[in-house]
């Protein structure tokens, strides 16, 4: 078995005391970076890349990979505890993660997210190890027609996000689509809604909106509910002894969720440009569709947390495939890793693994180690992180405002993004109060630009003909799956019932 020989070689390269130290440092730093709202893996990697200059490439790549994974693990912690996504791929984790914490299950939620991340990450690495060449075919068969159809498939997710009052749900999604059109039009280069601002050329970035809508919006909503006046004023309950470990029920009910979401996340991650965010949102809606009790989603269903967490980590492994097999970075984070390869004088491409077997397999081996290390670190760190929620809300609340504001600013050094975050916070409060769906808004903001650009690219390529969607084999496949889902989902939804995200808003508002 070639693969095992390669993997053993990789492990022997990776396991040296100094490399393990780099790995642990990277994992810890990554986790800290991930916890700060706004800082995701890509921002963390870009900021810390210069530290690795002058290090031995294998140690450096292990540290960078660990930062990447660490940030993926850390990003969920604030999603669960404060409803504030640490980075874009953990937005979906707020949908059920925060309700779980509110129900007093912060401990089990954090443990399960660490386990889910571990499962997703590890399944992802196993798939890389054995199937990298096969999946490289997937990532090289995606042109604009396929991206458009993929975006359409993602939009099915909107159906489950839209909620009971469909008009308000649709309005929410339209706000997201409208925000998505801001920026210089990709095809013609014409500015749309930029009003001459240089900061809006690149469009409205998704993370300030998500932090504002979910983080600040929730904060305002908690104040509206008078949380800062109650005696203890803690936002969520956490009982150390009996409520730390997940129950047997949690494990059993999420076994299949983990399996499904690992595969789904990995495949979406392999597609360049789709990435962990879309993977996590799709996994959430898939899980809700197949669940026996979809009405519990959005109210603290463990599967609703496990699905996006497994998927986003599996996707971040999947994103390594186009990087290692084609030299194409599939995400912002892998683009930074590519820059690192170039800095070390390597030439990523189809021959990369052949030419640099030690580095490539060392990297793969370090992913196994990194995921194990992070699982351990996470479980040990949970009692520490839950201290956050013991701080009385009247003190915690203002501090969260500070962290959200400064974190949002730092990522792109943009005042406009910071103001957008505050604006989204205020709008998010009203949306929550009046039964709109912030989740649909965010999803539309992610998928809208993808769909628009891909459709217009496709029609340029095909000279205006829609036949291209059935002339290309990969398109045909996606089209088939989408149609099957469309036929299937209404049935599943009829069995189901209420909504994902507007559940408790309905109770409170109107």
């Amino acid at each position, binding site marked *: 078995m070639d693969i095992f020989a390669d993997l053993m070689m990789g492990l022997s390269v990776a396991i040296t005391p100094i490399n393990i130290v780099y790995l642990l440092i990277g994992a810890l730093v990554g986790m800290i*970076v991930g916890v*700060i709202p706004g*800082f995701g893996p890509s*921002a*963390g990697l870009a*900021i*810390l890349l*210069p530290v690795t200059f002058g290090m031995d490439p294998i140690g450096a790549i292990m540290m960078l990979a660990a930062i990447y994974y660490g940030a993926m693990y850390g990003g969920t912690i604030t999603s669960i505890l404060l409803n504030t996504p640490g980075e874009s791929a953990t937005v979906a984790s707020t949908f059920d993660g925060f309700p779980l914490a509110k129900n007093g299950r912060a401990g089990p939620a954090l443990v399960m997210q660490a386990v889910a991340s571990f499962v997703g990450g590890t399944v992802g690495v196993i798939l890389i190890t054995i199937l990298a060449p096969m999946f490289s075919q997937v990532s090289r068969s995606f042109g604009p027609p396929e991206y458009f159809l993929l975006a359409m498939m993602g939009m099915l997710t909107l159906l489950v996000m839209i909620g009971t009052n469909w*008009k308000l749900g*649709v*309005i929410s999604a*339209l*706000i997201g*689509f*409208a925000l998505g*059109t801001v920026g210089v*039009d990709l*095809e*013609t280069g*014409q500015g*749309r*809604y930029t009003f001459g601002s240089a900061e809006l050329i690149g469009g409205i970035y998704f993370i300030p909106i998500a932090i504002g809508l979910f983080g*600040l919006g929730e*904060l*305002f*909503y908690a*104040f*509206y*509910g*008078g949380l*800062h006046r109650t005696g203890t004023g803690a936002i969520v309950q956490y009982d150390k002894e009996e409520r730390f470990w997940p129950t047997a029920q949690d494990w059993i009910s999420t076994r299949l969720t983990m399996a499904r979401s690992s595969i789904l996340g990995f495949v979406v991650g392999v597609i360049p440009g789709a990435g962990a965010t879309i993977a996590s949102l799709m996994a959430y809606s898939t899980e809700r569709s197949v669940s026996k009790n979809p009405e519990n989603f959005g109210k603290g269903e463990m599967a609703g947390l496990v699905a996006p967490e497994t998927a986003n980590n599996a996707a971040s492994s999947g994103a390594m495939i186009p990087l290692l097999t084609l030299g194409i970075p599939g995400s912002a984070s892998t683009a930074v890793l590519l820059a690192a390869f170039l800095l070390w004088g390597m030439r990523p491409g189809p021959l990369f693994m052949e030419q640099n077997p030690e580095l490539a397999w060392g990297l793969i081996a370090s992913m196994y180690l990194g995921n194990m290390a992070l699982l351990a670190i996470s479980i040990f760190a949970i009692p520490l992180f839950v201290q956050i929620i013991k701080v*009385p809300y*009247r*003190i915690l609340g*203002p*501090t969260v*405002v*500070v*962290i959200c*504001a*400064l974190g949002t*600013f*730092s*990522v792109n050094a943009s*005042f406009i993004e*910071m*103001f957008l975050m*505050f604006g989204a916070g*205020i709008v998010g*409060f*009203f949306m929550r*109060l*009046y*039964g709109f769906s912030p989740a649909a808004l965010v999803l539309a903001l992610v998928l*809208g630009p993808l769909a628009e650009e891909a*459709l*217009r690219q496709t*029609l*340029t390529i095909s000279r205006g003909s829609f036949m291209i969607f059935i002339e290309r084999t990969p398109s045909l496949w996606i089209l088939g799956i989408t149609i099957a889902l469309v036929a299937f989902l209404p049935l599943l939804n009829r069995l189901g019932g209420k909504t994902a995200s507007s559940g408790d808003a309905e109770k409170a*508002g109107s």
Partner: protein
Amino acid sequence: MRIAFLVALLAAAVFYSYTAFADLGFMTRTGRLGPGFFPRVIGVSAILITLWAILDELRSGRISRDGDARAWADVAMLMALAVGYALLIRLFGGMVATFVFLAVTLSILNRGQLVKNMMVATLVPAFVYLLFDWLLNANMPPALIELPI
């Protein structure tokens, strides 16, 4: 007050659509979908559905009840403080603004614990500064007006 929010959204949708129709082309000169194609579709749908939702609201004949005045006062105050904070950051930079925001907000919310409040107001910006500027080399918001301190 859901209706007020819907009316505000309607105004935004009208402005959005106006710009789409006035400034952005529907088709490019080569006959492909132009930059204004989707904005027009989005804008018009938003206007229609928002109008529909407003009609629903009027027809239901009841003005949705909101929480009590005290809850509104609290949330309005926090929003005002947050907006004030955003402006302070723009003017005086992250450090000064954070200290002022925390000092003011905590002295309102957490009355009578002056020492504790001042400690939080000092330690949080210091911690953030260490974390961002020292550990991560990330940008803290710079001041537009430097204070002589």
